[in-house]
């Protein structure tokens, strides 16, 4: 329908003479605590060691050797606790923050005795079995990738062990608590004593 031009003019004038707008009453949303994330691997206040003792009879026969932690902290015998607590607030594009846990094993295992001087073993000779797969979440859904799966180190600087989006609430929380039992794959290798460090990093974004 073609409206006559005079109609638009009159409507526009009507808008001009309508009462002026005034400020709304703003009910201010409360401030919430900032996001937080904590990660515990092994003891709370120390760097734990996991020792793999390979006897001469076992050396290189392919039978995995269970590691013995300096401070057993997990729920299983010889296990290491990995605990992650997230208090995540939904920001950004409608999704709560994502939590990623990575391991850096790029340094390898360096020989520390004279018999193997100069040798560096890759960390992919060490794996783990993961227990206690029950991530508790304050959000509405828990992903199947919420727990650390059993596996082994890949020798990279950022091996992804976990990637998890903590529910769908604007104020989500999640607690991961897995116990890892490490083992040495025990392939044919030179004798000696080797030592290396793996660093775990959790990021929430």
């Amino acid at each position, binding site marked *: 329908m073609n409206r006559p031009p005079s109609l638009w003019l009159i409507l526009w004038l*009507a808008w001009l003479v309508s009462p002026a707008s005034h*400020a709304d009453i703003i009910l201010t949303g*409360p401030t919430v605590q900032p996001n937080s994330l904590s990660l515990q691997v092994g003891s709370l206040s120390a760097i734990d060691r996991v020792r793999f003792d390979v006897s001469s009879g076992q050396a290189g026969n392919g039978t995995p050797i269970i590691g013995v932690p300096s401070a057993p902290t997990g729920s299983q015998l010889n296990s290491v606790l990995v605990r992650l607590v997230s208090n995540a607030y939904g920001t950004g594009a409608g999704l709560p923050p994502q939590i990623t846990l990575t391991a850096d094993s790029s340094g390898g295992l360096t020989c520390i005795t004279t018999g193997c001087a100069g040798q560096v073993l890759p960390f992919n000779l060490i794996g783990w079995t993961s227990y206690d797969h029950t991530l508790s979440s304050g959000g509405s859904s828990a992903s199947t990738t919420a727990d650390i799966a059993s596996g082994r180190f890949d020798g990279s600087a950022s091996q992804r062990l976990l990637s998890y989006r903590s529910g769908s609430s604007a*104020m989500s929380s999640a607690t991961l608590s897995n116990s890892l039992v490490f083992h040495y794959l025990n392939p044919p290798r030179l004798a000696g004593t080797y030592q290396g460090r793996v660093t775990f990093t959790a990021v929430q974004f």
Partner: protein
Amino acid sequence: MPPRHTPLTSPLLICLWLSTTIGQARAFERLDDSASPRQHIAAVQALDENGRPLASSLGARQALIHYGRIEVRLNTAPYLGRRARIYGVLPPMLPGVLTPTALRLSWRGGRLFDSGQLRPDEPALVWAGIVTTPVMSDSLDLRVLLDLQQVQLQQGQLPNAALRFEIEVLP
């Protein structure tokens, strides 16, 4: 055979339609509430769905925010002697509120205004009658219920709610 319109009938039809359109456009007018003592209201208390303080609640799904009793003063001078209805209104889109069902504002009226509740873009009746005073003033006890699974934080804050009042003048 149907009668044919003569050229004189067309202007008459247009004017009637125009009159109706303007009448609808003026049915709801925003009320001047600038005389209200406070324009920005901070929360008095914020709890989760279990009655625990929201600030220390992990994984809360709902937030019940209490703003206390605030005084509202509406300039009704232009409508003296007119029969009218006054509505509380939230805009259809509030930053951080993903769906209209995520937020519900409720209030308890005082000596003048009715109690009620509303959601974004769902006006709720606050008062009805003949306007007899140039300023209508009352206190409202305000609460906001937020579904935390349908909101986003705005720079570390839960979303604001912008309340305004509109008047419908009745014939």
